[in-house]
Structures are given as C-alpha cells and as structure tokens.
C-alpha cells in the first residue's frame, strides 16, 4: 500500500476510535483531495501530521470535520426533481393519513426546507413530519435556526418557480432582526422539521418513512457503505415508499437495485418493492 493511502487509513481509524465518526468507507479519491485541503488550512504537511493534530488538539478535529462533511446545497436544486415529487409522488403520499419524510444528509437544511414548502403547497404539510439528519452538528445547528442569507434565498427563487412553485419563495421567510442581510424561514415550516444527528455509516432505522431523499451523499461513499445506506433506506421505507437520489446517482452499480423499482429514472426516483 502506498504511504499516502496508509496514512489516510490510519487517520480514519484514529478518528473512528477517538471521535466515533466513521469515514473509513468513504470514496477514497475525493476524500484524499479534501484531506489535502485540510492539511493546507491546518498548516501540516502530511496526513500523519493531521493525525497528530486531531488526536492531541480536539478543537482541530472540528475544523477537519468541516472539510470531511460539509456539502453545499441549494433550495429546489434540480427543479425537475422537485417537480416530479410534486406531480407524481405527493399525490401518492396524499393517500396516507400521515406522511413521514426523511432527508438524509441534510447539511444546512436547504433541501429539508424545500420539501416542507413543497408539502405545504400541496396541502400536505399539516399531516407530515420531516426528519432531517446529518453527522455534522454544526450544520444541524445552523439548519434548525432556519437562517439563510437573503442573497442566497433570492438565488433560489428561480429554482422554486421551475419546480412548480405556487407563490413567491419570499412568502416563506422574513427578515431577521439581527441583520438586514439575513432572513429566517417561517416557524410554520421549521416546526414540521426535526433536525437530528444520524450516521448512515453507523446508525440504524429510526422510523417508518414514506419518502426518503438522499441526494449527492452516496457519491461520497464507497461501494460497501453505499450498499449499507441503501439497505437502511429500504428497511426504513413502507412498501411502495419512495427514494430520491441525486441527479448523477443511481442504483445501477449496487445490489440494492433488487429492492427497488424505477419510478422516474430521469429524476432518479425509485420505489421500494411491494414484497
């Protein structure tokens, strides 16, 4: 094994042992790039140097964690996906007395709020609960406040419209009292979303879901972890429940494809098989 790869493996073992974050089955090529960036920002020259820092200075671990986990997302990212949810999936979910949605890998909450808005616009939010999970505590704290910059939210307006938005996105947020550049998502949306810590690598099923979205998360996992996560999704979904992936993710190269049927292949929406 090349030294660089050995150093990465040792670091990931150390992080797992010491901090119980499991990155050991992350896709290696992009992980290596992010570790190289972390080395630069923490002023160490090797991944072994990074290991010394995170073991002896716990505060530097939280810095490293931002490199390993933070993914930036947009509201109503890939509007076609949300349009397909609106037109094809929500009418099916509407037949259930109550609806549970799991947004796995929610980062700063963009997608969770998008789902809440979508459910509201289709008249389903009152009987829905959205679980939004991530492993990054800092992201979860940010997400649960519902605070975004005005500039970013304005940038999401066009996405919302293309996703079939029924009114202006600005109807769903109001100005923060702290800063004119910040806005807060409406409490009516926030109270329907439960943000919590959950790891697709180490945690298990926590509720029965009707819709799971996990977009641009699986690309960072290796094949084994991808298989674990998809198994977890299949075990969490009701029969006929829906799974939405990122626009360049698919079940093609996994064994999990046996547990799902294609629902909307262009939008990467799958359905758990009935039996």
């Amino acid at each position, binding site marked *: 094994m*090349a030294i660089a*790869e050995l150093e990465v493996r040792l670091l990931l073992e150390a992080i797992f042992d010491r901090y119980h974050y499991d990155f050991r089955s992350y*896709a*290696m*090529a*992009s992980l*290596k*790039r*992010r570790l190289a960036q972390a080395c630069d920002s923490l002023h160490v020259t090797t991944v072994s140097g990074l290991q010394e820092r995170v073991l002896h200075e716990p505060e530097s671990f939280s810095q490293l964690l931002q490199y390993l986990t933070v*993914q*930036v997302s947009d509201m109503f990212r890939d509007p076609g996906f949300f349009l397909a949810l609106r037109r094809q999936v929500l009418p099916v979910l509407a037949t259930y007395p109550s609806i549970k949605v799991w947004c796995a890998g929610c980062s700063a909450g963009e997608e969770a709020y998008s789902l809440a808005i979508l459910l509201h616009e289709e008249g389903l939010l009152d009987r829905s609960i959205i679980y939004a999970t991530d492993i990054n505590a800092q992201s979860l704290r940010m997400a649960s406040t519902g605070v975004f910059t005005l500039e970013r939210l304005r940038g999401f307006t066009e996405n919302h419209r293309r996703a079939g938005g029924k009114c202006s996105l600005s109807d769903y947020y109001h100005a923060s009292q702290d800063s004119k550049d910040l806005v807060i998502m409406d409490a009516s949306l926030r109270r329907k979303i439960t943000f919590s810590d959950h790891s697709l690598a180490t945690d298990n099923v926590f509720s029965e879901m009707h819709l799971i979205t996990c977009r*641009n998360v*699986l*690309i*960072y996992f290796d*094949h084994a972890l*991808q298989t674990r996560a998809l198994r977890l999704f299949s075990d969490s979904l009701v029969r006929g429940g829906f799974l939405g992936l990122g626009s*360049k*993710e*698919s079940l*093609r*190269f*996994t064994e999990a494809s046996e547990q799902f049927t294609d629902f909307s292949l262009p939008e990467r929406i799958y359905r758990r098989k009935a039996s």
Partner: protein
Amino acid sequence: MTRRFDLVVIGGSAGAIEVLGKVLAGLTDRFSPAVAIVIHLPPEGPNVLHEVFATPGSPPMKPAEDKEPINPGTIYFAPPDYHLLVESGRTFALSQDDRLHFSRPAVDVLFESAAEAYGDRLMGVILSGANSDGAQGLRAVADAGGMAVVQALESAEMIAMPAAALEAVPDSIEVNVSALADLLRTHGVLNDR
C-alpha cells in the same frame, strides 16, 4: 515495442471541442484503452457530449457514472457540474466538491486521481483552453510515470491551458491535431489479431 496504455485522460476548455471532434473521429472500435474526458462547460448544460461526438464505427461513448467500472475501449465524458475522479480499483467516482480554477469538472481532479490509479499505464492530454486547469494534473501524470501530451500552441485556439501545462511539464510531447490522432492510434490500436 510500442508503449501501451490502459487509460487516456483528456482535458480542455475553450477551443477543445473541435479538436476532440477531429481526434475522436479517427478512432474505431479497435482502440483499446479507455478514454476519460473533461471539458469545461456551463454547469446547467445538458449531459450530451457523448452524443455530439459519436459517429458510425466510433468506440462506445457515454457519460461517466459514479462507481462505474472503467471498461477498455470506451470513451467517457465528465457530466456537467460534477468533478470526475478515478478510484484505485479502476472505477469512476463523481463529486460536487468545490470548483477548482472556477471549474467543475476540473481537469486537475481527473488527472491527479487517474495518475494515482494508473501510474505508467496512463496518457494525459491537454488541449486548447482558456485557463491553467490541467497543468498540475499533467505534472502528476508525468510524476507517476505516465505520458504527458500537450496540444502544440500554434494549433491551439486558446493557448493559456496548453501553455501552463508545458510550463509545468516542459518535456511533454507537443502535437498538432493530426499528430495527436496518429499518436493515439499508434499507442492504442491493437494490430495483432
């Protein structure tokens, strides 16, 4: 004996599409290495390069997918708005990590990861382009024992990218468009059947 490669990585931006059209048109299904291509395009654009370049008799062309095994003789294109990487088990990976040189996909990301995975079984080719993306990647290809190839400046519509690559890897092989097509055929077409 002619040197053989398992993978050819190609990167370019402005001015690279026409070059690629000519070069890929010269390949047939007897071309044995896999080819992975990053071209800088707008993030919102459609995922259609494989349709643009396909001609009757050309090798199979498709967008690269996450976790997809890299098959010999197939030409893969990075999808818009994703970095394309090569894993050590010779599969593709996609990521949405930060842009590099304002670009996603970035040539450096593909080349550096491919150099680790393929070592001296890799050829890296930098075409016309308007920024310095790819220079560091081509350096990694050369350092890992791969062959570094750069489009000759006088044949490039935009020289920033090939010029940066030449500065990073001064002993790169410089080729014009027709010489590049010949070079690929020389190293990639199996004659002995």
